[in-house]
């Protein structure tokens, strides 16, 4: 089964450059339908105002962290089923456990290649469709 490349993907990262890097990596995998937010609060506004199919979020952000965003999404009846990929430089065990407990779909540790990112997305989408 092939994954729909027209998925609308929300990239959440406080670093504009990192959002550009992720956008660039997604493009290499054929995903070009992308929206961006600079933190968890901005992401929630987007999620409440338009349909998004997939969330890729950084962990460390001011205002609302990736983990807080994940908890907010999983606690919202309309959003709770959304696939959520956590992108983080924090590969520490405690963080991974906290993200899994909060319901993360998968996580990816920076630095990563386009191939790894796109494989993670496809794996999550296929597991939801199965």
């Amino acid at each position, binding site marked *: 089964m092939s994954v729909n490349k027209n998925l609308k993907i929300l990239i959440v990262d406080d*670093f*504009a450059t990192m959002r550009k890097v992720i956008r660039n990596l997604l493009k290499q995998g054929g995903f070009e339908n992308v929206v961006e937010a600079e933190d968890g609060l901005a992401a929630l506004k987007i999620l409440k105002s338009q349909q998004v199919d997939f969330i890729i979020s950084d962990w460390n952000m001011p205002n609302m962290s990736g983990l807080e965003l994940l908890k907010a999404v999983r606690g919202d009846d309309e959003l709770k089923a959304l696939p959520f990929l956590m992108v983080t430089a924090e590969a520490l065990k405690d963080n991974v456990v906290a993200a899994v407990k909060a319901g993360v779909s998968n996580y990816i540790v920076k630095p990563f290649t386009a191939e790894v990112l796109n494989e993670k997305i496809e794996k999550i989408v296929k597991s939801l469709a199965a």
Partner: protein
Amino acid sequence: MDVRFINPFLNGTVQVLKTMAFVEPKAGKPFLKKDSLARGDISGIIGLTGSARGSLALSFSESSILKIVSNMLGEEIKTLNGDIKDAVGEITNMVSGAARKELETLGFNITAAIPTVVAGKDHSISHVLGGPSIIIPFETPQGPFVVDICIGNIVGQ
């Protein structure tokens, strides 16, 4: 400073630049730095706490960072603009994360703050512990950069 800290930061730096920017830097011999002068045109600095306390800085020459960020973004950047500053912060964050992951396997649980970026000729690095620091020099085809680490006594050891 505990010499066991050097390799994780060295390895993390190579891993991050190789993966995200397709640049394979060559490490030189580490040396002690007693002053606060940055050995580069732009630096990312991040505080570290936990089983050890201190800070990590990455200081890049203009020529090296222009190439690194151009490769990361897939577009040529010719001046030290906002994208470059943003990227230096993110690279510092990623190197810190990769190094802390390796340090975790050695039994050190270290957390990091949010990185700050300073630019300009002859800018200074304000390490959390004041100094001195260990410099790991690196060379890339486009120019040099350094990893500048100052980490103090290991808490509980």
